[in-house]
């Protein structure tokens, strides 16, 4: 069953710059999809249209049976609690402790007042510690986030999104600022979350090899249009060159083979 559906979605910035043109695709529940494409091709815009950090200009986006663009404020908050998001720069509140950042994932479920005073129930706290344990961060729980390494920060980001009890996690360049070993740990955790918790994951990735290795489906974007949508096995070299609008020998992966 499709959990997310884009129907002819277009996005113009400032009424002039075309970010997305006529994007249509649908993602089934439990899928692990990677979106690849050059910088500025509209990958981030696609993800941000899903939770309406960016409003689509035209077209319909259906998430879990709801038309996202028609959602009012309350409805939008509910939709956002169902979609976690992970960022390239982690976007944590650096001066707060790990556990506080993880609990932020619950804010969307609360009334404004109980959220403001920071009231969290015992179950929520227990759940937060459970998630931290699962991600190997138990010892860091009371540390301030600015004391953590990049890989640890990204795991806090994952923990925060898991606290939301999401059905979909949007990952915007989750490993672009990480060293290869932390990147691998993060990808493995996300893969594991996708398989064991049945949470749908949509990735923006720069690393084509990572996308090929981890995902069962790849969407290629060039200047705001989908140019490829299919399994990694069918993504030929020629197609990759088309996505990145380059010719043979110009990509860094060409030399590595």
């Amino acid at each position: 069953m499709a959990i997310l559906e884009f129907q002819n979605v277009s996005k113009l910035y400032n009424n002039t710059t075309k970010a997305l043109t006529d994007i249509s695709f649908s993602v089934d529940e439990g899928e692990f999809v990677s979106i690849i494409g050059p910088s500025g091709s509209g990958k981030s815009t696609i993800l941000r249209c899903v939770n309406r950090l960016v409003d689509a200009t035209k077209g319909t986006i259906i998430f879990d049976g709801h038309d996202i663009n028609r959602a009012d404020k309350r409805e939008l908050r509910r939709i956002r609690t169902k979609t976690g998001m992970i960022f390239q720069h982690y976007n944590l509140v650096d001066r707060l402790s790990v556990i506080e950042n993880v609990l932020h994932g619950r804010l969307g479920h609360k009334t404004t007042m109980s959220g403001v005073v920071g009231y969290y129930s015992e179950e929520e706290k227990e759940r937060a510690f459970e998630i931290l344990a699962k991600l190997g961060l138990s010892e860091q729980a009371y540390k301030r986030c600015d004391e953590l390494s990049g890989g640890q920060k990204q795991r806090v980001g994952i923990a925060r999104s898991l606290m939301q009890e999401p059905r979909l996690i949007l990952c915007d360049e989750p490993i672009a600022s990480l060293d290869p070993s932390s990147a691998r740990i993060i990808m493995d955790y996300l893969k594991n979350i996708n398989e064991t918790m049945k949470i749908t994951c949509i990735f923006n990735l720069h690393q084509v090899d990572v996308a090929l290795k981890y995902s069962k489906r790849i969407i290629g974007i060039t200047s705001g249009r989908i140019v490829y949508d299919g399994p990694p096995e069918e993504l030929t070299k020629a197609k990759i060159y088309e996505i990145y609008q380059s010719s043979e020998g110009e990509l860094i992966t060409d030399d590595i083979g």
Partner: protein
Amino acid sequence: MISDKHMDKSKVSQDRSSVFVKRKRTFTLAFIIFFALFAISAAVAEYDVIGGFESIPKAVKWMSANFVPDEKAWSRLPKIFEKLSETALVSVAVTVCAATLAFFFSLLGTKTTRVNPWIGRIVRIIAAFFRNVPDVVWAMLLLFSFGQNMLTGFFALFFTTFGMLTRTFIETIDEVSSSCVEALRATGASYIQTVFHGIIPSSMPEIISWVLYMIETNIRSSTLIGVLTATGIGNLFDLYYKRMDYSSASLVVVSIVVLVIFIEMLSNKIRKVIM
């Protein structure tokens, strides 16, 4: 292919040397303009450069004869302390009030949290207006409505502080908090929740640092405003000065300087702790 590269190289080196020539020219030109500006403005204002420097020793002599606190001045110390603490406390009160209001006002002005771009622009214009009218001018304007009392000084300082802090808060919030606000919005947190859980914790140290700076500045400027509004330490200085009791007046100045240095040291300590 090779000759192509060679040509490129010679072109590059040509570009490079021309960049340096250009920079030299800019420097020379800037120096000439700078000097010319000085010469012209000195001529227009009939400022005698040599005479100005020559009078310095005389001024020092006069000041050291008249501005050294004597016995009588020291006996006025309790009175000076009383007025000084009054002025300092008013400055603190002004800054805290203005900061609280400026924080909520600045939320409407930041790119991160503004309700819409037009309101954001209006907020910035209002802040710029309050900031760019000097506090002394505010005091003179407010004298008409409030007369010579504490309230006039309070509002004069309040307006400039409010304008100044609104602007710095806007910049701080946009710089420090935009990424975590994005993340919190994405979790479904409401506007007020993102303010309390994202913006306040992430930008508070910077905000406190600015508030401390404004307290220092306000103690300094409240002295001058006190002269106009006949309140606080400024009034005391004015009184002694007009009585030609220069030694007492100088003790007032010294005590203000000591207080400001003390507050500066204190706020540096606080900054170190909270950062």
